[in-house]
């Protein structure tokens, strides 16, 4: 009974629950339908923009530069700071309230709100912040660039400045600094451009003018450079650099006005001489003049020496060129190439010495005639001296070789005197000729510690490079080497170039040396036969002439000479 009633009770409960749930669901569904239509209306409203309440004062974007946040906060504070001063009246200050003009206050509030809407729109301030951020970054790049520049890492400095310019193209300092770096890299045109950019951004920026002037003077735009320096003086009348530079440039300008007289002269002969007059500053001068002149030297000096194997036409041309250059260098007489050629053509090296000593003065006196004023001469003469300093070493070498000769003349003349005049050197060369037959290995050995002794093949190579265009001095140099040393000196093989030079040198004065021992010793050099194989017909002719000359003296038996001929592949 009770069980049944329990069971029934459970069933009833379940049924009521199900019914309840069902009705609940039905209610919910009906509610849902209503909600659907309600929400649709709400959505329509939202779309039409009636449902406002959009948060207008959003905080800034996170983790952008700290500066930005500070700025924002300041702005927020500024607005309310005005209000309390004017508006706030204590609730108990009834007198004040009596005087309080509500309408006016309301108007003010309206005004403020209007301002807010127009001026502090989120986007605008954001953009402002972005600009501020970029500027900050640009500043950082500038500092980086300055550091690099200090450390001498110019490439990186240029990179940093360029980055900074990307960040903030309105900053005048960045292009000016990059120009500084470019100046150091000697990229003058780019530097000039950067300076122009900088000046266009800030026409009062003195450094930009200074740097542009430097760039322009280096580019040879002297007039514009002077104009820039003048601008600097306008802005900063006490600028010393500008003053001195203007002085210097104006002199240069004057000189250039008169210079054409001399330059055109040389230009007719050869345009390459021109750079000598151009460089106004020490650093840019050397590379400018050294390169072209060396080229000239190689061409002309190489030709007269191997003229033996040249065709007649080539000989004529080279002879003519030689003449031209002699003319040229007699007129300008300032370049080391000039001295080289003179060494080639004049057989008395000491004379060259004299010439050289004369040369700067000649030039100076030339210019003196043209330009009055002492400073000018200094400017003209200094570059010449700078140029002269280079061949000095070569000359020394040469004087050494002459002094060497006099040495084994057992002190008939003092060696120090040889350098001073042509007379002495002439005497020495005479002495050489007379002593040629007597040269023995012992003699030369004694002399060897005096001259740059070609003890190693490296040393010989170096000396050879210097001397190969001066047959005379090379002859003297070569003569001093004991023939027994050849195999050691030439090492693994004798260069064809060296061999031909030696042969030609020997042909100059066959009577001065022990031809047989020299020629024989040469064949003892390793892989000589290989080099001999490559001798040209004319070179072989030179050798055979030499051997013939030996046979004429009759000092050597024919069998030896024949074996020598064989060795030279004749």
């Amino acid at each position, binding site marked *: 009974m009770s069980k049944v009633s329990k069971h029934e009770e459970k069933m009833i*409960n379940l049924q009521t*629950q199900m019914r309840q*749930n069902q009705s*609940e*669901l039905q209610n*919910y*569904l009906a509610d*849902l*339908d209503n*909600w*659907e239509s309600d*929400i*649709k209306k*709400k*959505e329509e409203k*939202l779309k039409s*923009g009636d*449902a406002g*309440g*959009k*948060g207008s004062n*959003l*905080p*800034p*974007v*996170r*983790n*952008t530069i700290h500066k930005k946040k500070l700025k924002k906060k300041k702005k927020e504070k500024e607005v309310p700071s005005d209000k309390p001063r004017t508006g706030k009246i204590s609730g108990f200050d009834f007198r004040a309230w009596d005087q309080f003009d509500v309408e006016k206050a309301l108007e003010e509030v309206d005004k403020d709100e209007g301002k807010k809407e127009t001026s502090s729109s*989120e986007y605008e301030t*954001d953009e402002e912040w972005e600009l501020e951020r970029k500027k900050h970054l640009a500043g950082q790049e500038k500092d980086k660039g300055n550091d690099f520049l200090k450390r001498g890492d110019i490439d990186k400095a240029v990179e940093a400045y360029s980055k900074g310019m990307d960040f903030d193209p309105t900053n005048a300092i960045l292009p000016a600094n990059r120009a500084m770096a470019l100046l150091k890299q000697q990229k003058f045109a780019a530097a000039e451009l950067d300076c122009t950019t900088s000046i266009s951004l800030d026409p009062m920026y003195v450094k930009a003018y200074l740097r542009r002037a430097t760039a322009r003077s280096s580019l040879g735009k002297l007039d514009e450079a002077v104009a820039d320096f003048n601008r600097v003086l306008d802005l900063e009348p006490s600028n010393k650099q500008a003053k001195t530079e203007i002085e210097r440039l104006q002199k240069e300008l004057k000189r250039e006005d008169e210079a054409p007289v001399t330059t055109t002269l040389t230009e007719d002969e050869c345009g390459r001489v021109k750079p000598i007059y151009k460089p106004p500053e020490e650093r840019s001068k050397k590379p400018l003049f050294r390169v072209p002149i060396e080229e000239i030297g190689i061409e002309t000096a190489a030709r007269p020496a191997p003229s033996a194997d040249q065709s007649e036409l080539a000989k004529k041309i080279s002879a003519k060129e030689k003449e031209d250059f002699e003319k040229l260098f007699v007129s300008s007489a300032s370049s080391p190439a000039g001295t080289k050629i003179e060494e080639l053509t004049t057989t008395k090296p000491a004379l060259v010495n004299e010439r050289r000593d004369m040369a700067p003065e000649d030039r100076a006196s030339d210019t003196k005639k043209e330009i009055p004023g002492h400073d000018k001469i200094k400017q003209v003469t200094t570059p010449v001296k700078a140029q002269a300093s280079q061949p000095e070493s070569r000359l020394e070498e040469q004087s050494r070789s002459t002094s060497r000769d006099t040495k084994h003349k057992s002190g008939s003349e003092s060696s120090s005197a040889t350098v001073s005049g042509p007379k002495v050197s002439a005497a020495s060369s005479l002495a050489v000729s007379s002593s040629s037959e007597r040269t023995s290995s012992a003699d030369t050995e004694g002399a060897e510690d005096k001259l740059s002794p070609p003890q190693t093949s490296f040393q010989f190579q170096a000396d050879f490079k210097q001397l190969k265009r001066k047959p005379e001095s090379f002859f003297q140099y070569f003569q001093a080497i004991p023939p027994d040393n050849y195999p050691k000196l030439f090492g693994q093989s004798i260069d064809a170039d060296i061999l031909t030079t030696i042969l030609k040198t020997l042909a100059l004065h066959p009577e001065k040396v022990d031809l047989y021992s020299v020629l024989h010793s040469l064949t003892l050099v390793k892989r000589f036969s290989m080099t001999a194989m490559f001798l040209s017909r004319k070179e072989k002719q030179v050798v055979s002439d030499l051997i013939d000359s030996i046979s004429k003296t009759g000092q050597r038996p024919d069998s030896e000479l024949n074996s020598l001929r064989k060795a030279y592949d004749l």
Partner: protein
Amino acid sequence: MDKPQIILHIQKPVNYTVFDAKWIPCSAKFVALGNYARGTGALQIYEVSQGDVKIVKDVEKSKAFKCGTFAASSLQNRHLATGDFSGKLQIWNLESLELPVYSAQGHKEIINCIDGVGGLGIGEGAPELVTGSRDGTVKVWDPRQKNDPVATMEPGEGETKRDCWTVAFGDSFSAEDRCVAAGYDNGDIKLFDLRNMALKWETNVKNGVCCLEFDRKDIAMNKLAAATLEAKFHVFDMRTQHPTKGFANVSEKAHKSTVWLTRHLPQNRDVFMTCGGNGSLNLWKYSYPSARSKKDPEGVEMGVAGTVDLLQNVVMSTQPVSSFDWSPDKMGLSVCTSFDQTIRVLISTKLNTL
């Protein structure tokens, strides 16, 4: 007797794998995101109307969508932020879906999860999005800043990169305060304080963390629910942090399968739904203890966890439930998707009596 009922209202089969469904705020519509078998992305908008769902919009995009949120958009715009399989973060204007209004290559690999704050009037401060990816990084984005995240949380040099499965915003009770919780495949839970840009707390719950959710984003951290593999979920009381023990938590077994999701009821923060890998839905209620904190022997405050009670358990599908979303506008209305390629609109009754 007075148990809430979970009733299947509408069922809609689709021809793609649905990964996420979200109610469009202030409407009876929801958007479904997924990928077609050919690897393209599906973005569909449905409207619930008279016991049925009508498709409103249907677009196909080049990359498959994994997740989406409206939480960083204003109520007026209702822009949908999505994360896709190629690691791209995009924001769409649902009125014109041809081109995204914002696009950034946020991650190198798939974006597993996305959350937003600051929009819809929920939470203070700037609208921000957070994305978690398989590449191990968690990135915070501000839709006003193009291309670059405003904050990035990534493993340090030499640390192994863990797959980030879930992210959640919380603690956004003032303009500056904000926290991001991130859960990883190795069971790590990390809490990043965005105000101080520092790691606030981390723990490991042993099993991979599938889902993290604060009960509310716009209040000081209250509760954090974490769903994990191995049929377990945890509820942390986030009010009191002990210097060594961290936050107190209660853990509960559920679903006999992976717990994929926990979703708090927008209208009642102590009620939440968990979704299982076996296609089941569990409705839970959290009960606070009599005192939420106590002093440990050294006199330092420590939290006390409450208890959770199962209110309802229903099985909807044979496949895992991939997403579940309560309607923010209508209490009891929800949408859930599962890997059986079906979208379901559910009704839960009697929630107001709890």
